[in-house]
């Protein structure tokens, strides 16, 4: 264990701080609205990639900075940005999930074509996984892709597709071998959202925003070379992606940022002239949350070290999404209680503290559900993490619904 900054890291810290002093004014607002990134955001992303403050460990040949994984470097950079309240760049499904997936199982051509533009913010991805009838039971997706010459012809419907209304590309899980058992009949295909036959309809959520979409495919033709790995291996690839999603969704840095905001909120908000921090129940809840955040922060440092060492973290990794999203929701719940009745007015296009609290409070429930609901997460933790037996197959008679 060594969390001290040796010479090399002190130098990096100084470098990042100098960068922020010089360029920080170009940063978009931290925790800004969840929408199509504007030019300012894209420019900022390029600057970060160029300096190695984003996509730091992506190899140079694919447009990254090519640094060796180093958990302290990552922490030094993250801390410097956080202390200056400056954006650490884009965090989206393309960067957090597709890029590591392609680096792990993509072809050389796919990496060269997609990694660079994605990390620079020039190419946005959406995830074509869930369908109306396939939520928790992801492997049951019905969207079909039939090989016709050297093209797949895609028909079907996806749902919960965030960013589809402005994404350039989609990574799509679809059925190519309908005669195979359900997990063995899937493929994972990359396609342009500009391909003819794709229709995107916005899907409004409880937040009042259209954070998701439904996507309809009618005879959408995609070159066969756009498959990742090969036919029937889509379930494997999807699970590689989900592994990264699980980490992305329980991010401890997000907890740290929120914790700091909560402390502020409780130190500045009053009820009938008393500061919330002076009211016992508010303070107690903050203290408990602080303890939990400290635990998850340490856990994340441990995971990053293991990742840098090339160790498979097993159950330690599998718990992050479930544990992290639940804690984040409890943090937004405290924020909602802090803004109280005066925070009830709500227009989801605003960005003030009260709106952010109420928006997070609802959006976080989407995060708990999305990417595998808590029940699915607990199955995964129990089965893959602890080696517990799967739910036994049921007798066919019991399979029917009962109204």
């Amino acid at each position, binding site marked *: 264990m060594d969390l001290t900054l040796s010479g090399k890291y002190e130098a990096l810290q100084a470098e990042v701080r100098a960068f922020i002093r010089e360029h920080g004014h170009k940063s978009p607002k931290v925790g800004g609205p969840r929408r199509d990134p504007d030019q300012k955001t894209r420019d900022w992303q390029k600057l970060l990639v160029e300096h190695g403050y984003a996509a730091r460990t992506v190899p140079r040949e694919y447009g990254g900075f090519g640094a060796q994984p180093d958990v302290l470097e990552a922490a030094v950079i993250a801390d410097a940005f956080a202390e200056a309240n400056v954006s650490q760049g884009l965090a989206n499904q393309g960067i957090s999930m597709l890029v590591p997936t392609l680096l792990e199982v993509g072809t050389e051509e796919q990496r060269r074509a997609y990694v660079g533009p994605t990390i620079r913010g020039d190419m946005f991805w959406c995830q074509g996984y*869930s369908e109306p*009838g*396939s*939520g*928790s*039971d992801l492997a*049951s997706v019905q969207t079909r892709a039939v090989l016709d010459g050297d093209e797949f012809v895609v028909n079907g419907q996806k*749902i*919960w597709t965030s960013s589809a209304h402005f994404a350039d590309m989609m990574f799509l899980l679809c059925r190519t071998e309908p005669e195979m058992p359900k997990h063995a009949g899937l493929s994972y295909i990359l396609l342009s959202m500009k391909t003819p036959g794709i229709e995107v309809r916005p*899907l*409004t*959520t*409880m937040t009042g925003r259209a954070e*998701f979409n439904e996507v309809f495919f009618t005879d959408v033709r995609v070159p066969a070379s756009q498959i990742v790995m090969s036919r029937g291996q889509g379930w494997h690839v999807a699970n590689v992606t989900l592994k990264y999603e699980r980490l992305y969704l329980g991010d401890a840095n997000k907890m740290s940022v929120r914790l700091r905001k909560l402390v502020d909120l409780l130190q500045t*908000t*009053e*009820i*009938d*002239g008393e500061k919330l921090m002076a*009211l*016992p*129940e*508010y303070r107690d809840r903050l203290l408990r949350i602080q303890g939990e955040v400290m635990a998850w922060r340490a856990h994340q440092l441990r995971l990053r070290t293991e990742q840098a060492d090339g160790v498979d973290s097993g159950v330690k990794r599998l718990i992050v999404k479930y544990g992290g999203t639940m804690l984040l*929701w409890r943090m937004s*719940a405290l924020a*909602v*209680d802090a*803004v*109280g*009745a*005066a*925070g*009830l*007015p*709500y*227009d989801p296009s605003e960005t003030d503290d009260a709106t952010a609290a*109420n928006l997070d*409070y*609802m959006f976080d*429930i*989407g995060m*708990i*559900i*999305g990417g595998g*609901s*808590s*029940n699915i997460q*607990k*199955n995964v933790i129990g089965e893959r993490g602890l080696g517990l037996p799967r*739910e036994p197959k*049921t007798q066919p008679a*019991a*399979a029917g*619904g*009962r*109204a």
Partner: protein
Amino acid sequence: MRFGLTEEQRLFDDSLRAFLADRVPIETLRQQAQTGRGFDPAIWQGLCELGLPGLLVPESYGGAGLGVLDAALSAEALGHAAAPIPFAASAVMAPLAFANSASRDQQSEFLPRIAAGEMRVGMAFAGIGGQTGDATLTLQGNRLSGRVQGALDAGEATHLLVYLPDGRAALVEAGANGVSAQVRRSVDRTRPVTDLSFENAESAVLDAANDRMAAALRVVDAGRVMLAADTLGAAQYMLDQAVAWAKERVQFGRVIGSFQGVKHTLAEIVTMLEPCRAFVWHAAYAQDALPDEARLFACQVKAHVGDVGREASRMATEVHGGMGFTDLLGLHYWFKRCTFDRQMLGGPQRCREEAARLQGWKLAG
């Protein structure tokens, strides 16, 4: 002694719920949510015919002369329907305010109009009740000045009744000189919150109570019981929907309600929610019949049901998976109903703090 509802209460509840089921379909909710003003004239008219605005108004003034428990049953039904109409302030707290603090003349002037449904009263509290936000009200004679945030039921109110920190209340007409009301769409699109400001506005001052502050707190308490009842109804609706969904939705070749994960979640919801019903009844009854315990009941029921409502509404949403998170089923209207109720008139943190002080449980300095 009986701990339960009377036959009359059941019948009234049935007819109210039948009316709401008929008149507040999800399409109506969605339309009302566009305005967010918490008032639908047609529904209001029907509720007036059922006698809802006059529930607590004495019979001598044209009301039904019923008690807080009857009002709580109605609040539960309204929460269950997410009905976009004023109730807690307009039909419960305001009549109580008149009963507790108004002169005989004031009662004669206003209570019949409330009972008839022609007068709808938005209410706000400054410095009592545990609201966050601005609250600076002063009275000079009967002239009201200052601001107060977070008024309840004020979306299409004809009158505004505001409490000052000393327990006096002032009634103004909504459109009068020096009165301005900014109606703001809230998280809960079925009920707005309203920011009020007054500039030397003419008011009727309600100040006939022997103990002003005690009278004011009885009004707050009744409001808290109503909000708890509303949450109970909304959370019960979400549970009902989640149970129905769990019996229909198939994943992995089985209806999801046959999985222990879902089944146990629903069992947990009903285990925490069902005792809240008796608690709300008991707390409501206490407002009329158990003066020594009334405040403790009001604080604790608001806090406890608020906490249960938060958990139950999240868990019921989770049972619906992604569909619960979208607007497609409209389930979120009830989730937000719970959110609104929780924050209004003091959240659980604040209510428990009051309960502690009531019992002399003081903190170390």
